[in-house]
């Protein structure tokens, strides 16, 4: 059975990340912003049933625009239980793999930028201007 990814690479498709059962997604909007979850089932064209037992996301339905797809994917049957999702996620060590992605690093960067105080923002601005002036 060809996976979506291998089919995409073979056909040289534009899209490499697909919304499919097992796809690990990064939640960008909503209650669980910043956490990762796994697609367990598709509800309709705009909604996913999602679960993140290892990242503190309860099993819930999210809208597609709340979520950002990652490269990571696990092998789970459609609609499987949280226990199964958890075991697959820990087996693949998805949490560690996600931390290595650029998306995770960018999110960390955004978080630390928001935590810069007024002085921090000043120092950032000054260092940027001096850097650009060179």
């Amino acid at each position: 059975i060809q996976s979506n990814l291998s089919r995409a690479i073979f056909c040289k498709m534009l899209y490499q990340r697909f919304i499919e059962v097992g796809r690990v997604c990064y939640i960008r909007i909503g209650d669980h912003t910043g956490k990762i979850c796994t697609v367990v089932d598709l509800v309709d064209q705009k909604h996913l049933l999602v679960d993140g037992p290892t990242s503190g996301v309860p099993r819930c339905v999210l809208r597609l625009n709340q979520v950002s797809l990652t490269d990571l994917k696990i092998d789970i049957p459609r609609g499987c239980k949280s226990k199964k999702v958890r075991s697959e996620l820990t087996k693949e060590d998805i949490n560690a793999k996600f931390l290595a992605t650029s998306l995770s690093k960018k999110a960390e960067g955004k978080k630390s930028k928001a935590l810069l105080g007024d002085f921090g923002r000043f120092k950032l601005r000054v260092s940027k201007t001096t850097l650009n002036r060179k």
Partner: protein
Amino acid sequence: VNSSTTKQWYQRRVAITAGMLPGGVPKLGRAAVYRRRALYKRKKNAKPSKVEAKPEFKTKKVHGEKNGGSRQVPVQKSPRFYPTEDVKRPLTNRRKVKPTKLRSSIKPGTVLILLAGAHRGKRVIFLKQLPSGLLLVTGPYKINGVPLRRVDQAYVIATSTVVEIPAIANDKLTDAMFKRKAKPTKNEREMFIENTSEEPKISAERIALQKEVDAVVVPAVKKVEMLPSYLRSKFTLTKGQFPHQLKF
């Protein structure tokens, strides 16, 4: 409850809120509370009330043979005069004036952003809160031109930057120092004569005090990298920056 300490009050509050359901509904109904308290089982220590009845009448000696020798006179005489209209009395005011509560984010040495006044947008160092409640700040003067100044807490943003300055204990740093001096009133003749000899706008005393305070603050500011230039710059909002979303 009046005699309990603040800690006991808080503990009591916690206990009360623990026995509550959401919406301010107590967990136990009246009957359940009655059963639980079981006051009917407890011994009641009946203390005799020590209220001494004040005597209404007192005996007074009366002179004269035929007047009975003594008479019962009321202790409190009824007034011999009543006003025609009710006299309105103001309500009792038991308020004690305290200086404004200082925000927990403002500590001596904190960098503050002034939001109003001549120096709006400037970043200054907070020194202490004066008894009037106003905050005493300094630029320092040499760095951004803000002198020793009183500033209202409401017109200030406290940043998270705190400069380590040694405690400034100066007797002259009080509200009286900053009060505007009343101009001497001129009599009729003098009113039309222009006062040619004007006193300097800033007293020598103030300048000396400024130098004294800044001699302590400026070295502390210079110790921190980029802090002098930070204090020299003004606070502005750029595109995409919203004050309620910024962390100061």
